[in-house]
């Protein structure tokens, strides 16, 4: 045994207890990712039940009570337990690696966040085992509908407690991310050299600081109303139902960007690698991220145009402005591909799917930011289509891109490319067949959150098409699960850098050792691994 080998720590334990007690950011990241994917599976099954009920008019697959629980748990799980936490899990795994750090700043706090998240989600779902069933007032749980006078069941309380725990976990994680990035960067890793994904997580964390306390306050007030004699949202006691909406959307709109900025980061990491070019405008992308984050704090009442209780033009204009930095990001991604050498490995395919789908969601977003359009579109299937193009066509496609891209770094093996491409096409076609018709359903007058609808206009046909599309998406997800199984038996290990990538996580082994790096390459630009691979080129640093 050489002297160097003797200095290396013992191989990490891999038994169950070591996973339950881990404070290693990579293991916590994988726990986060696995848990959020589990919740995705559950929320996806709920979506299939929803689509099955709506496959034809006056269907009786489920009753109204069950249906309300289905869409409440579907929305709650997708938003609070999948799309946002998946980003936190990915960042848990990647942030220390991308900045050349051995772990997060507060490893035990990090573990606390994960366990709060896991049990918060389970508490929300545990409502389904109570007499009156799970919460059934939508993921927004508007008061006074969610007040004790109407929602008498324990399910609503379990929803409040569960979502509250998840929001605390999210705030703690954001503290950890910001501290880690500001304090734990490796020598040479200036702020203007950290990868775009890390930048996006800094912007996301700042949004979490501002937004999630408002949600926590809203939930606490609702709980006080329900059980401690409060009247915050009860008009009979002088309370204001509008206040609930203000607090909720003061959180809720920044939350939309908590669920998309990290995935802008994912796309910004993947497109340069598969185009073999540096990101086009590094500074522009960073400034755009902070512009989006800043503007998103001033647009919440665009969810409330139809209340007649807010200053519509102000919130409309602020919402329009968000299109500008988002456009900057699109042009930078296209600029990165321009005159590149583009390969269509699965991560790149999903990234292109993200660009094509998210663009439509962004454009319908500008449309519904116009109050005269929102007066028709609000709470109709047009909105359902819009937000699924953002969160499903956008975030979900970036999630699959991230899984295929970083899988070899996490587990030392690639996922199968052929199955990956099949998964992409099934999801891409299935997604668009499901959600494109919903724009028209909304325009034909179908409200959201309905368990049945009349057989008027083209509603029966459009709903049948959408349901068929959702089954194609299920096939795509099953192909992914099969891919994970098949790839687990693939014994061919990948090297540290199977994609010829740029950022520091690719400078260490796959999977990385517990302490992350044996040695770091010199950091002279935001792509140190590229610089090390191409010593003939001068490092091209922003600053």
């Amino acid at each position, binding site marked *: 045994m050489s002297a160097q080998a003797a200095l290396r720590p013992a191989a990490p334990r891999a038994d169950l207890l070591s996973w339950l007690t881990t404070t290693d950011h990579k293991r916590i990241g994988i726990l986060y990712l696995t848990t959020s994917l589990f919740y995705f599976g559950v929320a996806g099954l709920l979506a299939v039940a929803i689509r099955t009920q709506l496959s034809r008019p006056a269907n009786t697959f489920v009753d*109204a009570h069950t249906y*309300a629980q289905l869409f409440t748990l579907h929305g709650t799980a997708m938003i609070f337990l999948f799309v946002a936490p998946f980003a936190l899990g990915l960042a848990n795994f990647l942030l220390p690696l991308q900045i050349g750090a051995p772990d997060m700043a507060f490893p035990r706090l990090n573990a606390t966040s994960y366990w709060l998240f896991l049990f918060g989600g389970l508490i929300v779902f545990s409502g389904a085992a109570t007499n009156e069933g799970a919460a059934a007032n939508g993921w927004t749980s508007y008061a*006074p*509908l969610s007040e004790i006078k*109407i929602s008498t069941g324990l399910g609503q309380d379990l929803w409040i407690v569960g979502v509250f725990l998840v929001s605390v976990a999210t705030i703690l994680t954001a503290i950890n991310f910001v501290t880690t990035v500001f304090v734990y960067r490796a020598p040479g890793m200036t702020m203007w050299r950290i990868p775009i994904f890390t930048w996006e997580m800094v912007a996301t964390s700042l949004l979490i600081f501002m937004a999630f306390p408002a949600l926590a306050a809203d939930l606490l007030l609702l709980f006080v109303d329900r059980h401690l004699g409060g009247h915050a949202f009860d008009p009979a006691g002088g309370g204001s*139902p*509008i206040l609930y909406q203000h607090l909720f959307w003061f959180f809720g709109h920044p939350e939309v960007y908590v669920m998309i900025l990290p995935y802008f980061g994912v796309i910004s990491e993947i497109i340069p690698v598969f185009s*073999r070019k*540096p*990101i*086009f*405008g590094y*500074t*522009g992308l960073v400034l755009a991220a902070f512009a989006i984050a800043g503007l998103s704090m001033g647009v919440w009442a665009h969810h409330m145009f*139809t*209340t*007649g*209780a807010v200053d519509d*033009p102000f919130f409309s204009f602020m919402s*329009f402005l968000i*299109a*500008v930095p988002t*456009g*900057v990001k699109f*042009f930078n991604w*296209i*600029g*990165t*591909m*321009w005159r*590149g*050498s*583009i*390969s*269509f490995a699965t991560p790149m395919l999903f990234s*292109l799917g993200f660009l094509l789908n998210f*663009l*439509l969601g962004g*454009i*319908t977003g*500008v449309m519904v930011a*116009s109050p*005269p*359009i929102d*007066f028709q579109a*609000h*709470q*109709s299937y047009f909105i359902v289509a819009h937000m699924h193009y953002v969160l499903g066509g956008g975030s979900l496609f970036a999630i699959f891109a991230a899984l295929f891209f970083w899988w070899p770094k996490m587990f030392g093996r690639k996922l199968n490319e052929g199955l990956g491409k099949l998964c992409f096409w099934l999801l891409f076609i299935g997604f668009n067949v499901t959600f494109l018709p919903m724009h028209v359903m909304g*325009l*034909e*007058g179908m*409200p959201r959150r*309905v*368990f*049945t609808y*009349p057989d*008027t*206009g083209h509603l029966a046909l459009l709903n049948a098409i959408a349901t068929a599309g959702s089954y194609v998406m299920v096939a795509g997800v099953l192909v992914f699960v099969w891919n994970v199984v098949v790839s687990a038996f693939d014994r061919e290990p990948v090297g540290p850098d199977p994609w010829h990538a740029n950022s520091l996580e690719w400078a260490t082994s796959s999977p990385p050792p517990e302490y992350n790096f044996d040695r770091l390459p010199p950091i002279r630009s935001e792509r140190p691994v590229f610089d090390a691979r191409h010593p003939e*080129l001068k490092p*091209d640093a922003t600053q």
Partner: protein
Amino acid sequence: MERLPWMTGATAQASLLVSNWMLFAYVGLAVALAVWGLILFASVRWRRRETSTTRLPPQFRNNFALEIAWTVLPLALVCVLFVYTYRAEAGVEALVPAPAVTVAVNGYRWGWTFAYRGGPTVHGSFANLPELVLPLGETTRIVLTSSDVNHSFWIPAFLFKRDAIPGRSSAFDVDPATTGSYIGHCAEFCGYDHALMGFRVKVVAPADFGRWLKSPPT
């Protein structure tokens, strides 16, 4: 016969809404086609043809003039869109000083009542939906509230909805522009039978409206 509420618009206010919809739809479609075109063009034009694992394309980046252009042009575009949307909204939300008819609309779990000022109050049920009768070409003021939870009063053919919120009252005017029958829904989830909380709207000639007001069918 129920009319399809596709972009027709059956009120004077709705014609403003339709032109705003169309402006955004055409601009949005043009932007979408341009950007989709750029993405697909770049993907096809610069797809990797060689099998070399090391050859690099030119490593250019940053173009200050271009980056300013793709910031300023979208900014100008959304400012123009805002001007149009501001005008349309002001027209739609304008209230006349003295409406010909005033109806107090109340939403409850799960139904609607329409109380005509100086006239009858219309009730209904799931089997026999309440009907809001409006005179053609005259201004009707809808004064909206709720007696329990949030609801939303939506007539898709009017391209308009307004939330009914307990403890608040909210008013808007409609000027029906064509006679006909339309369907309306509650658009804000209000509990299990939200999906069944519909109503009917019937626009009739002013003379017929006068007769109906005196002796509404029970």
